[in-house]
């Protein structure tokens, strides 16, 4: 009864977030083609909850620094971006284009080890990792759930030699591009995935990835999101890990009016390995935000996390790194480091570790630094004939490369750094 659930916000509609959301939900329901739409039931559920959930205000701790109200200035319609120009695909990778409407697998020969998940199985699986990682009720996830028309769902068996590239470009159009992804890695499976999300207009790219890693499985995951001054990005990555599995997430986002990334990891029984490396940039009046959460639900888990941020202009960078080590998680070894580069007096950096440690036999290290470009490093470069501005660029690049070089090889053609710094023509 989708229509019924929508009548509530529509009736209450005046100006403001409520009416924007109502209009969006109406549009999201309207496009659904009956029958072939596997997401219809879950979309209706999410719409119902969302309609009753106020837009998180800055009084809510998780959104203290990041204002969502500008979203409601975007057109409350679903985008159908036209195919965009893309660099050549790197050797050894398979690129799937996501436009929110079409079946990304149509006409594609999947490499050995990958197969689509559909039907009852999809219904039974979708949303499970979100629930397990406590992500189902997050506003960006609800928004995605209430609007997504397509899901790309894949099962992974054995070692997949091909890197999977999942690519979207919201383009210059106005509206919202919801993308939904599901990966189920069977025990021992291994996969490399690169997400690339771009935009050049006043729109929102909303991405939710769920990944379930079976025992001993390995997922190497890259996410590259160079944005547009007017564009917004809300990306959630929910990962549930069985014992012996390895998840390694490398992300880089920046250039968005509002870009927020929420990696949410759960080691279901501990004894798994998680690594998060992230770079975010905020220039102009942009906001770059990462809220990560790592939960160790069992002993002997490991986390290595490095979060780097650069703030220039009047940009604002926000990092909140939650790590939960309950009593069951003895012998957890977690290290979190937040390194920040402040390039302007008017930029702002907020960084906060949020460790909840109950277990007593654990090693949890964390640290945060905020610094400017080092005068001695600049001088050293200048003393070799390199002009001050070029020296500053080299140092900035050096700062970023530590993370960017960890992106999958498939990221190379996308020129991560140049695109994040807005140095390349689009």
């Amino acid at each position: 009864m989708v229509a019924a659930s929508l009548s509530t916000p529509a009736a209450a509609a005046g100006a403001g977030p409520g009416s924007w959301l109502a209009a969006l939900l109406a549009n999201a329901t309207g496009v659904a083609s009956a029958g072939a739409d596997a997401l219809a039931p879950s979309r209706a559920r999410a719409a119902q909850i969302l309609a009753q959930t106020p837009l998180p205000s800055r009084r809510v701790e998780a959104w203290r620094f990041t204002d969502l109200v500008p979203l409601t200035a975007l057109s409350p319609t679903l985008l159908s971006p036209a195919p965009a120009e893309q660099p050549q695909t790197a050797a050894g990778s398979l690129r799937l284009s996501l436009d929110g409407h079409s079946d990304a697998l149509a006409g594609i020969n999947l490499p050995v080890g990958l197969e689509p998940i559909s039907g009852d199985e999809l219904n039974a699986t979708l949303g499970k990792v979100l629930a397990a990682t406590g992500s189902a009720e997050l506003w960006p996830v609800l928004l995605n759930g209430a609007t997504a028309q397509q899901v790309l769902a894949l099962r992974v068996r054995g070692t997949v030699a091909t890197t999977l590239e999942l690519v979207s470009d919201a383009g210059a159009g106005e509206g919202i591009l919801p993308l939904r992804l599901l990966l189920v890695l069977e025990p021992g499976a291994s996969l490399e995935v690169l997400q690339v999300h771009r935009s050049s207009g006043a729109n929102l790219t909303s991405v939710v990835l769920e990944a379930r890693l079976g025992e001993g499985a390995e997922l190497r995951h890259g996410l590259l999101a160079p944005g547009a001054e007017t564009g917004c990005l809300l990306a959630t990555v929910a990962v549930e890990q069985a014992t012996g599995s390895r998840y390694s997430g490398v992300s880089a986002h920046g250039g968005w009016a509002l870009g927020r990334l929420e990696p949410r990891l759960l080691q279901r029984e501990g004894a798994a390995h998680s690594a998060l490396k992230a770079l975010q940039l905020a220039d102009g009046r942009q906001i770059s935000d990462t809220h990560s959460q790592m939960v160790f639900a069992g002993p002997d888990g490991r986390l290595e996390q490095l979060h780097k941020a650069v703030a220039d202009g009047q940009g604002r960078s926000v990092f909140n790194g939650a790590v939960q080590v309950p009593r069951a998680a003895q012998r957890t070894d977690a290290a979190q480091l937040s390194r920040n580069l402040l390039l302007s007096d008017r930029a702002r950096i907020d960084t906060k570790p949020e460790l909840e440690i109950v277990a007593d036999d654990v090693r949890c290290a964390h640290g945060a630094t905020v610094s400017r470009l080092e005068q001695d490093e600049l001088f050293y470069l200048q003393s070799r004939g390199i002009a001050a501005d070029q020296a500053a660029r080299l140092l900035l690049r050096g700062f970023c490369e530590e993370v960017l070089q960890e992106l999958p090889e498939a990221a190379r053609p996308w020129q991560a750094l140049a695109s994040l710094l807005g140095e390349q023509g689009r």
Partner: protein
Amino acid sequence: MIRPDAPVLLEIRDLTARVEDQPILKGVSLTIRAGEIHAVMGRNGSGKSTLSKVLAGHPAYTVTGGTVLYKGEDLLSLEPELRARAGLFLGFQYPVEIPGVSNLEFLRVATNARRAGKGQEELDTFAFEDLVRERLQVVQMDPAFLERSVNEGFSGGEKKRNEILQMALLDPLVAVLDETDSGLDIDALRIVAGGVNHLAGPDNATLLITHYQRLLDVITPDYVHVMAAGRILRTGGKELALELEERGYDWVDAELAATERTPAEVG
């Protein structure tokens, strides 16, 4: 090699400089002609590195008086990068680590900046790789160091070799080498000194800052200067270094006290 008619490359006159509010250089004068090798010695903290950094244009130091002419032109009004492009080279006592910046790229950008300063065209990546591989042999350095970040995790001696590699690529007119010999094992010292000798010619000049005679055994200086309390207290030939090795710096105190009295008596 001393040739009285050789062109003056660097002329420092009564140079004074401070860091924050503390005066450090208190009137340094020094003239360097093409073809010459000068050694500057002196106690820890006497101002040797400060002099080298002021010459290179480090922003932490403020020049409060005096002049420096480089090839007859005012050096102090130039930005550090322009000094380097014009051929002034500083080998750092403590080379700086720059994480994330590849040594190879750094060397290429620096080499091309200097080439632009000499009116030569830029080298592309391939031409540069050829050049750098050839110059690596001067310092007998493993090409693997090119792939690493600038000086990051290099041992003390490796950093110094990297400095000489830069010198070999940048083809300086005046090279100021600040304790390039310290922290080197015996073989490395020979290699570095060999590199300096190899690069020294009739048209350029070298200013060596050092504490040890062992470097001057391999690189013969034309002049030896003793720096104390921010000025050059005494200048002599290579035998002055030998004398220092024997006598140490105790005589400096007496001489300093004497020179400090002199201006009052004169003034």
